[in-house]
């Protein structure tokens, strides 16, 4: 028999326990304003394409100090290298000058170029060599973005010596792998060598190179790998090296790295090696975009039922979403969920807009963002798709503002009346294309954020690309295209296989860049606008590096590489160490001063 006193006590305990368990859930639900896109206000800038710095149109930008500029020497066939160099100059706020040959180049009386970048593959060595000697003698750095033909090299020993080549050992050599040494790119050392057959698919770097033997005064950053038992390290083919002369440094790239946009990072890293310090602006944004997230309609039900014993909405809610959340929690990513109301517009299954608020709520809890995807499998125009999706968004999203879109086909998206349906559209994410600049304006008010990696595949070139993009821009955008899950083409597309690969790749290869901020596309859009509008100058006065920045809103970031000393006091910003001599500078004022202190070596004196 329970006494009244005990009964009251037990009842109170039950109430308290229930309150404790339910209270947090209720509060979370009540306070979660999932139907409002917070980034609409918090990630807004007044910047548009008009404020963007472009290398070709560079003026001095109101600074007292002159702007550094690069001279590109390449023919009409050097399009890929030219694009990379131009983008690099734009991103690093350098001026850009171009000529086909140095034969007719007149050394300016005023400011000399900071660096000459030559596409060696199309250069006339005999004609250009004297001018290159002259320029390097005057302290202009030289980057051979590609090497001349081996016969040209063999017939010009003087030029070989100029580039630090002792002799040409062999015309071509097939490498076992490539060794990227620490301290060059952000992220550290990498060995791109396949040891097992399973890994053979990963090797997609250029494996056949000219075999040059280097002389003294050189430093190798990337080395081709041969059989260690047969060759000494010193004899192995150099892929990227530096030759120091009295006044300038000469960099040679014995591969096609600078033909890809990740070559941006190589150019920045080379400049960082050439000077005692290097500062260049970065976006500081790591995005994870889940594209074509079609959890709302029963597309491809037959196949999905046979594979997962559930239809698409249940599959996404019960299987895919928890896996994604697991990755998000492990990486700290801010997910940008690009909703696709449906992929098949001809199957008669309409999307359930009632599911949308649930994902809005979940995404909002994880500091994520919801956008819209432009993908579909039906033969329907983009305009029709937008029209049919409009009601879905009206019913499901309510007053939630869509700021970002994912468009696999950028040309199609450019022609579509996107702003009619998404009037506050700010940014468009698109698929990976290594030959185009990763960030830019697609229209006056809309930025473009190209994918820098796809989560499902990670060959060696993709790894190198991450390091290149991170070094140059501090930016990455991993795009997971879920259309392959809804419409699998082979076993690799099955979610149980895909999730393992995605999880491995994302959780592993981005660890070195944890210092960079995790952002949604709308957040990164704001940072990209500020980054593109940025202009700056640096100078060293004694033991201080001074950074002068033009006016900016909020905060901008720079990557600092110090080859001498360690940073001491920083005025106007804060520094975070990233390893390998790299630091991330968060500038909050237009004048930043970094004091250098010599490394305290003498513990005993």
């Amino acid at each position, binding site marked *: 028999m329970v006494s009244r006193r005990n009964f009251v006590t037990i009842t109170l305990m039950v109430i308290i326990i229930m309150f404790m368990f339910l209270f947090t859930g209720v509060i979370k639900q009540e306070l979660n304003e999932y139907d409002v896109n917070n980034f609409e206000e918090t990630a807004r800038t007044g910047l548009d394409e008009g404020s963007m710095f472009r290398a070709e149109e560079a003026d001095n930008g109101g600074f007292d100090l002159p702007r550094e500029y690069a001279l590109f020497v390449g023919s009409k066939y050097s399009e890929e290298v030219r694009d990379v160099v131009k983008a690099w100059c734009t991103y690093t706020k350098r001026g850009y000058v171009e000529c086909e040959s140095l034969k007719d180049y007149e050394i300016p009386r005023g400011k000399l170029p900071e660096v000459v970048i030559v596409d060696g593959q199309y250069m006339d060595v005999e004609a250009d060599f004297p001018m290159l000697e002259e320029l390097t003698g005057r302290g202009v750095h030289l980057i051979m973005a590609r090497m001349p033909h081996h016969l040209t090299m063999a017939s010009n020993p003087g030029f070989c010596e100029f580039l630090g080549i002792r002799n040409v050992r062999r015309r071509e050599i097939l490498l076992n792998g490539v060794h990227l040494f620490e301290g060059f790119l952000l992220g550290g050392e990498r060995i791109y060598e396949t040891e097992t057959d399973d890994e053979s698919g990963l090797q997609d770097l250029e494996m056949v190179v000219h075999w040059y033997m280097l002389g003294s005064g050189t*430093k190798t950053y990337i080395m081709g790998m041969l059989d260690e038992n047969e060759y000494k390290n010193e004899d192995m083919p150099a892929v990227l090296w530096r030759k120091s002369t009295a006044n300038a440094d000469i960099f040679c790239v014995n591969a096609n790295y600078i033909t890809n946009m990740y070559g941006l990072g190589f150019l920045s890293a080379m400049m960082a090696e050439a000077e005692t310090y290097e500062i260049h602006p970065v976006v500081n944004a790591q995005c994870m975009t889940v594209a074509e997230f079609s959890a709302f309609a029963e597309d491809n039900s037959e196949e999905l039922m046979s594979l997962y014993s559930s239809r698409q909405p249940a599959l996404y809610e019960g299987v895919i979403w928890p896996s994604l959340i697991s990755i998000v929690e492990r990486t700290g990513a801010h997910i940008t969920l690009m909703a696709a109301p449906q992929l098949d517009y001809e199957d008669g299954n309409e999307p359930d807009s009632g599911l949308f608020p649930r994902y809005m709520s979940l995404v909002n809890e994880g500091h994520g963002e919801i956008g819209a995807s432009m993908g579909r499998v039906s033969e329907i125009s983009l305009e029709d798709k937008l029209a049919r999706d409009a009601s879905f968004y009206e019913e499901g999203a309510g007053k939630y503002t869509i700021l970002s879109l994912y468009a696999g086909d950028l040309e199609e998206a450019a022609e579509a009346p996107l702003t009619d349906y998404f009037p506050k559209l700010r940014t468009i994410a698109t698929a990976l294309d290594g030959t185009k600049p990763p960030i830019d304006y697609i229209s006056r008010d809309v930025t473009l954020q190209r994918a820098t990696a796809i989560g499902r595949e990670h060959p060696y070139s993709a790894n190198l690309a991450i390091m290149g993009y991170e070094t140059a821009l501090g930016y990455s955008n991993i795009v997971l295209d879920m259309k392959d899950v809804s419409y699998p083409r082979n076993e690799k597309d099955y979610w149980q296989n895909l999730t393992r690969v995605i999880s491995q790749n994302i959780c592993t290869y981005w660890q070195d860049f944890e210092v960079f901020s995790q952002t949604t596309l709308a957040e990164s859009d704001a940072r990209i606008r500020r980054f593109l509008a940025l202009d700056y100058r640096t100078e060293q006065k004694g033991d201080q590096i001074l950074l002068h920045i033009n006016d900016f809103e909020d905060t901008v970031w720079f990557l600092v590489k110090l080859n001498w000393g360690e940073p001491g006091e920083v005025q106007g910003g804060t520094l975070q160490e990233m390893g390998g001599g790299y630091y991330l500078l968060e500038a909050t004022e237009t004048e930043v001063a970094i004091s250098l202190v010599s490394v305290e070596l003498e513990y*005993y004196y």
Partner: protein
Amino acid sequence: MSMQMLTILQLTGILAAYLGMTVLLPAFVFYRKVSEERFCVRFMIYLVIGNVYLMNMVMVLQLLHISNRFTLILGTILPVLWAMARVHNVTVKDGILGAARSVNSFLSGTMGGRLLLSKIMRFIGRCLKAGLLRLLRSIRKNFFDWGFTAGCIVAILWLYGSNLIWNMGYCTSDIPVHNYWINAMSRNEMFIAGVYPHGFHSMMYYLHEVFGFRTFELLRVFCLVQNVLVHMTLLAFLKVCCRTKYSPYIAMIMYILANIWNRDTFTRYFSTLPQEFGMIFILPSICFLYAFLEDRARENRAKGWKQHSTRYLLFFALSFSATLAAHFYNTMIAGIFCVGVAMGFMGKVFRREYFGRIMLAGILSIVLAVMPMAVAFAMGRPLEGSLRWGMSIIAGPKEESGDTDQGQGSSAAEGTGQSAGTQAVTGDTGQSAGTGQAVTGGTGQGQGSSGTGGTQAVTGSTGQPTDTQAVTGDTGQSAGTLPQQDGNPSGGMQGTPEGAAIQENTPPPEPKIPLKVRMKFWVNEKWKKTVNLVRGLRDTVQLRIMNRISAETVAAVLFVTAALSVLGLLGLTARKTRHYGCILLSAGFCLLFLYVVLMAVWFGIPALMDQTRCSIYLAYLMSAAVALTADALSGLVLGKITTPFLSDMISLAGGGMMAFVIVWGGIYKMPLSITALESNDAITCLTNILRDNPRYQFTVCSANDELRMVEDYGYHYEVITFLQAMEGERQEEYLTIPTPKVYFFIEKIPIDYTMPYEGSGRKVSEVGAYRPLPYGSGLSVYKGPNRYTVMSKMYYWALAFKKMYPNEMRVYYETDAFICYEVEQNPYRLFDFSIDYGYNSYSMTDE
């Protein structure tokens, strides 16, 4: 932290570790067994036991190739436990069972951790308390003794320790060789350069391995520790021998403070060398022999080995073996002293109940010391250079006889002096870089070529030391008297061709000389020779040992030491003082024999030891002799008419007077600054490098001593090899150094490595860099102007290389006279250090 402070901390640590293992630990174990002995005897017992055990344990483990920190600690702890069990009459089994019970009760929870800890702490507290109380009692009882002893130690630390602060490099060039040998022991490669007494090296290795002191730091600092002990054993010896309380301090004041000694007699104390380490054990061995002779007399011819006196014999054997284990010269001195003891105690030593025991102990001690070397020799290790020389001395008469005979007149034409035993070893090892040869001139004048050891050896059957000749030149006779020592009255004639011609002709019959005339002539001759000998001795002692005082004062000191024997004879007259008299006599004989060794050339006997070395020991023992004489005067002579207390006071007054004279006369020593063979900057830089880098991840490219200093921690590259690789035919296609970091030591003002030269002290310059690179072997390329050339070239190489690699090469350490560059390179892709720096024959175009 300043290097000075670091040196002091290192010294403190090494002193604590060494004394802890060789004095405190044996004291902890054996105190109960020897508690009835006087403190000074106990001190020597502990010191000998500790040193001999550790040295031999290391050598045994090394021969078994199982020497490492674990076995060394085990080899220390287990015997300690065993010995403690024996001393405390507990069987080992009981001890183990007791320990097991404690462990069991701890593990089973019967005894808690706190209880166990408090038990241990209480035990330690009890021991410390007991020790401290004893110490305090002793200080209260012997306040002046403790005060004087502390004063002596402070004086030693000040006089000999200051140099450690001022000059941090090795002060003698053979220390790197010892460093090398000790380093090899870390790899269980004892006797790496051949069989050689390794007692000293074993002790250094033990301290390095067990306590983690770096070998080069030990070799830098340990000299002061051993120096303190050399002096303390002298004090302990005198405390045992003297009848009065304060006479020993006369010797200490004279030896430590008086500025009367030739620098050569004590400059080696500034270096950590085996000979000086071995000096610690000379006087304890004699002291134990005295104790045995005294104790045995009380045993009334008791038979069997289980007698009280046997322990002294054991300690004598141990300390005698320690002298041999450390350095052969110490054994020679200890042996000479033993002969002196035999002479002084002639009445006892040759009796059956003494002689057999002493001989057996002596033989066993030699066997103990020689055994490790013999085993290694049997295992195929060759003899080290010094030992080959030692063997040649032993085998000398065979080779020398011919020469000596020739020199003594069988062939007068050749009788101008042949070399006899002409090879001497300089330094301790004689191994380093072809050093150490002494050549006797055919004209009878010996000239020792100074090797790296910076010592001279003068030998010769009929030769005369140049120095001595120069000094005695004023007598006008000394040079001419030498041939007369052969017993031929014709003197100088014998050594000339004319003399030979006369000998070949039939001599006319000599007229009969009256006996009285012959006697007078004979006496005159002998007198003249004796006077010459005494003058020669005085001059040699003045030159070699006491070159800062007048000849008359030297004569007075010699007289004082000679008075020892007279006072000894006086002591023999009374039964009560007979043992004391024998001690005095034996010390007197010892000095006499040492004078003979010093004057070996005069006597025409093979020089067992060069004069410089001999003078070190003589200075050491002459101080003792002066103290013994003073003690005999105050204790023996005045003691007959005064009370013991008054005698003590007289001895105290003697000591005070000695101190007063030294201070009043201004002849007190001041700390010396010994030129080191490596700059302080280099040592400081190296210490930082060792601290900053993990093992074997760096290379030091420098001129010399760092080679052995970094051996166990990193790699070393010779500067000369480095430069040669960029020169002419020796030029290498690639000059790589395969470590992530490479440090280049460059002297902007090159030091004078053992020899100054014209232009010493100037900065490196292009002029020096333009000079051709010196080619040669060993250290010659780093001496004199060669060093200037080498450093100039290195300096300009570094400037050129830094231009090529501004971000990879940086200044690591710099002062006005020294600069160290650090090059950080990728170990997978090494830099080619061979460059055209403008002052080499290398050129890209030529190639």
